[in-house]
């Protein structure tokens, strides 16, 4: 198998390269970093629901909607990306997401350990150090390949991540606080950032141990041509704004098991928002945008009924709507 150790490249090319290789059914490991910042959305996300366009425009933040799964992430040159492209029918390439992530994230865990960080895999697809996420990942089928796309955070601008998202000010602030608690970076763990070349060499070494010897590849004309073709497609409004399924409320994932979920509920005379903080897949806290909209007894009842429940956004909405309706009657 080939590896493509590309260093810092144009931000959009960091996405186009693995899409192109997968479309061409060329297996490989791609390591790179973008030369400027951008947000990357999962296939099923709609930028109109996810992104603060004005903030992104004012801060030169590009936008890309990828073919694979996961949520919206802010990416920049302070991250090292690893993309693994494998044919679907290759032995050992599991179709079960957890098996796929567990197996192909192992080399990344080992590279981080060798750098002096006690990284561990957390299902479904996080790598954590002392329960703080250092690497977020997503995957999916592109053409006849299965692709793992992930990154190691060397340093991370939590505030910019929150500001790039479309959500209310208080929710952004809450998101920043949760990221402080639940995310970490190489700089925060080691006190310095090792050279990217060293990190990439380790990744190549560890992936070779799993997948067999790798040789260095270069991006040839056919791949460039495919990237050019895909660029047109992925830059088009038709692709970017292809209407996905409208989501109920606003969910922001911080790390595996930790989410913020916001929903505006209809009340007599308008609507009011409630934010649910979820930890280890359970509702941990409820915050009301305008507490005065609910009688203290009702707020207390809601907290009693909802806190501790397993996170299921639909069920939460149903419970709150029923309680509001009952209270109004």
């Amino acid at each position, binding site marked *: 198998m080939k590896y493509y150790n590309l260093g810092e490249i144009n931000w959009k090319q960091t996405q186009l390269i693995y899409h192109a290789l997968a479309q061409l059914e060329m297996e490989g490991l791609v390591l790179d970093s973008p030369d400027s910042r951008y947000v990357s959305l999962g296939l099923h996300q709609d930028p109109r629901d996810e992104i603060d366009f004005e903030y992104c425009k004012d801060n030169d933040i590009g936008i890309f909607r990828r*073919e694979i799964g996961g949520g919206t992430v802010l990416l920049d040159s302070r991250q090292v990306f690893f993309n693994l492209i494998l044919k679907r029918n290759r032995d050992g390439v599991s*179709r079960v997401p957890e098996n796929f992530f567990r197996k192909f994230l192992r080399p990344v865990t080992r590279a981080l350990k060798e750098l002096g960080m006690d990284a561990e895999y957390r299902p479904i697809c996080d790598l954590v150090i002392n329960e703080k996420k250092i690497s977020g990942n997503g995957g999916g089928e592109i053409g006849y390949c299965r692709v793992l796309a992930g990154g190691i955070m060397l340093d991370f601008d939590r505030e910019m991540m929150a500001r790039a998202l479309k959500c209310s000010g208080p929710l952004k602030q809450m998101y920043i606080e949760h990221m402080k608690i639940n995310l970490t970076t190489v700089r925060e763990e080691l006190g310095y950032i090792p050279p990217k070349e060293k990190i990439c060499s380790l990744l190549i070494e560890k992936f070779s141990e799993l997948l067999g010897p790798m040789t260095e590849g270069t991006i040839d004309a056919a791949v460039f041509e495919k990237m050019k073709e895909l660029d047109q497609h992925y830059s088009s409004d038709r692709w970017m704004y292809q209407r996905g399924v409208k989501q109920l409320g606003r969910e922001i994932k911080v790390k595996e098991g930790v989410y913020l979920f916001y929903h505006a509920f209809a009340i007599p005379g308008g609507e009011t928002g409630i934010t649910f903080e979820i930890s280890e897949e359970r509702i941990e806290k409820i915050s009301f945008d305008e507490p005065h909209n609910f009688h203290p007894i009702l707020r207390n009842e809601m907290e009693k009924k909802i806190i501790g429940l397993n996170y299921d956004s639909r069920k939460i909405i149903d419970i709150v709507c029923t309680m509001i309706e009952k209270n109004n009657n």
Partner: protein
Amino acid sequence: MLEINGMNFPLDRVYYTRDGAHIWLKQEDDLIKIGMDAFLVEYAGYLTFLTVNESRVKVGESIGSFESAKFVSRLYSPADGEIVAVNDEVIKNPRKINEAPYESWIFAVKADSAVLDGESEYLLDDEEKIVKWISEEIKKVEEDE
């Protein structure tokens, strides 16, 4: 109803197996309703998104996608034809498929020609063949772990 390793496979329908598709087809009048089988649901985990993007479909081609556990998989058509209905209920809430895969059809196709005539090697309705196929699929998953 056939039960294999705790997964149910009703015998009132046909199973499409190409490229690990795990799709069921059920003839209802002149339409074929299509959904995901228990194996797919069991191993994919909770479905978070489901889309059907095409209206004309060709056998073996991707016609949409679904996501579970931050992994996007493609939905492949088992027939040539035209999609005449999409089940909005499961598009809006794909978890319904996890809860009841055989009641949660995804789309209905008006096929260009007879599909369920038993000629395709990728369509199974025979109990023995289904048992063999699912057993092999389980073995494959276990080997990949």
